[in-house]
């Protein structure tokens, strides 16, 4: 459920989510870097100042007071000309020798870590009321006497500056982030324009407008694959759709002719009173026509089944030469009567195939060949093996098939010569069925023709058990 909803989130939202995360993170990092570097800069500045002050105070202690001025007076002048600096000097017993007025450095002194005068490294920060301080404690020895020096600078000013800076910084960062996101969203929206346009154009594809194709060079590279795939899909749809509607038209046409014959015959017969033998004759004629119709319908049904992958050949190992010889026996009388001889070249070759279906292929090809062979000529069957394929060709002399028909003769209802074939063959489905059977077996078929010779070649995979 949740995953489903996630999958439906728009592309723009996805991109924007990633952009927002990236922009937010980089701006936050940037702000943090600026802020912390300024803060560190201030802290270093303060530390330097504390070091200088400590040194100045220590110098005074070393030098000692010049009478009549007391040590306290000398110390009070130790750091001069500076604003917002404080210090306190105490002796070993904790007695204050000097202390800048208006500040309590004694309690701060307890929390600070000890430093040597020459190396002030430990610096502390504390707050008293609204004021903030940074300070350091150092000890020094003068003539056996230990002194403790606490120095401090007022950092309230820095803190206020930092507060203001932080606020401005975040305002600027937030503003820039918002602008970047807006620009990003706009960019994504603009970027999707070709996609939306493509969608709108795809919507115009209807069954009567299957000729629509898009130019892959017209769209951004990212969409090229989509467009190519779409074109392929429409192409296939168009071909199948055209074939389907052609097929329907052909069926209608092929069925209409025998039906019209039937109707006319019956009408003529009924137009006046007839004798019993005449009625019988009519019924016989009708029966022939009906049988032709039935055969055509069952052929079409077979093809429809084959189109839907419902033809399941029962594969057995067959020697093609044997099958051809069996077919020769079957056609022998007929060929003999037409004064056509049947010749087989090539040795045995085993293929895996459905016996009945393979015989049907051979029968269709042989029948066609015998039918179109002139008297006293040979129909030749050649069997050859080429790699993993068994190639069977049925070759007959006689009037060839014109080149413009060759590519179509395996199509349903296609007749190279409508008049001739109508009389001799079925509905023009024989070769379509032949090709269908060969393809069900994983093979292929082709026809070649010169002016005086026609060859049908089909190939089947050699049986697995006969290999190697």
């Amino acid at each position, binding site marked *: 459920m949740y995953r489903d909803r996630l999958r439906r989130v728009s592309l723009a939202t996805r991109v924007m989510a990633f952009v927002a995360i990236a922009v937010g993170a980089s701006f936050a990092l940037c702000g943090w870097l600026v802020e912390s570097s300024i803060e560190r800069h201030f802290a270093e500045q303060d530390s330097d100042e504390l070091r200088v002050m400590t040194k100045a105070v220590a110098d005074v202690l070393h030098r000692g007071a010049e009478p009549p001025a007391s040590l306290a007076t000398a110390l009070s002048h130790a750091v001069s000309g500076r604003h917002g600096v404080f210090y306190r000097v105490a002796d070993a017993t904790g007695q204050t020798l000097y202390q800048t007025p208006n500040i309590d450095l004694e309690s701060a002194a307890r929390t600070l870590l000890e430093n040597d005068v020459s190396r002030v490294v430990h610096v502390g920060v504390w707050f008293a009321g609204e004021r903030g301080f940074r300070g350091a404690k150092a000890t020094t020895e003068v003539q056996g006497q230990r002194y403790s020096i606490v120095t401090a600078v007022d950092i309230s000013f820095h803190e206020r500056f930092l507060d203001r800076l932080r606020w401005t910084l975040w305002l600027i960062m937030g503003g820039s982030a918002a602008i970047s996101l807006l620009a990003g969203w706009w960019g994504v929206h603009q970027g999707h324009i070709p996609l939306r346009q493509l969608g709108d154009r795809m919507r115009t594809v209807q069954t009567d407008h299957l000729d629509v194709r898009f130019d892959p060079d017209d769209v951004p590279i990212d969409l090229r694959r989509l467009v190519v795939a779409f074109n392929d899909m429409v192409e296939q749809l168009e071909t199948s759709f055209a074939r389907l509607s052609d097929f329907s038209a052909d069926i209608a046409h092929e069925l209409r002719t025998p039906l019209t014959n039937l109707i006319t015959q019956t009408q003529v017969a009924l137009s006046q009173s007839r004798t019993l033998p005449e009625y019988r004759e009519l*019924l*016989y004629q009708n*029966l*022939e026509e009906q*049988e032709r119709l*039935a*055969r055509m319908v*069952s052929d079409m049904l077979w093809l429809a089944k084959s189109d839907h992958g419902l033809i*399941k050949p*029962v594969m057995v190992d067959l020697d093609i030469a044997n099958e051809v010889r*069996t077919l020769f*026996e*079957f*056609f*022998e*009388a*007929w060929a003999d*009567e037409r004064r056509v001889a049947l010749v087989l070249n090539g040795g045995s070759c085993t293929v895996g195939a459905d016996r*009945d279906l393979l*015989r*049907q292929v051979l*029968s269709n090809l042989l*029948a066609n060949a*015998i*039918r179109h062979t002139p008297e006293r000529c040979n129909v030749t069957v050649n069997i050859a093996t080429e790699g993993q394929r068994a190639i069977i060709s049925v070759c007959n002399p006689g009037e060839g098939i014109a080149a413009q028909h060759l590519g179509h003769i395996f199509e349903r209802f296609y007749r190279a010569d409508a008049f001739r074939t109508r009389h001799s*063959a*079925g509905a023009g489905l*024989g070769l379509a069925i032949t090709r269908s059977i060969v393809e069900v077996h994983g093979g292929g078929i082709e026809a070649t023709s010169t002016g005086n010779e026609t060859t049908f070649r089909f190939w089947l995979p050699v049986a697995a058990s006969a290999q190697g």
Partner: protein
Amino acid sequence: MFLTARDTVGDRVRGLELGADDYLVKPFAFAEALARVRTLLRRRANPTAADRLQIADLTLDLRGRRAIRAGRRVPLSSKEFNLLELLVRHQGEVLTRSIIASQVWDMNFDSDTNVIDVAIRRLRAKIDDDFEPKLIHTVRGMGYKLDPE
């Protein structure tokens, strides 16, 4: 005997294994259905196979695969003998072209040629042309039958 539109091999095998004596897929020719019923009836009537078939003055020697008409031996090719045997075994029945193609040549599909007609014509020339009565008859619109009448 099954008369059904279920035509896959699996269906047919199942039907026969369920105890059917025969299985005929719709659509079927009525003549074929009748022929098959008669075959089933005959199978019950005389289960023993004879080595000789006799009809009118025609005798078939099944062992020697010879045909003798009116005491004269008629030379037949192997397929012609098979065809004649089929017709004799089914005497009085109409055999369609597709049954003949299937039984004699093991061609289990409809051929749009007149191969069967030619074969019958040749058989007639040997068996019937020089003899009376004619045995092989054309049943128009259906097929052929062998009948001594």
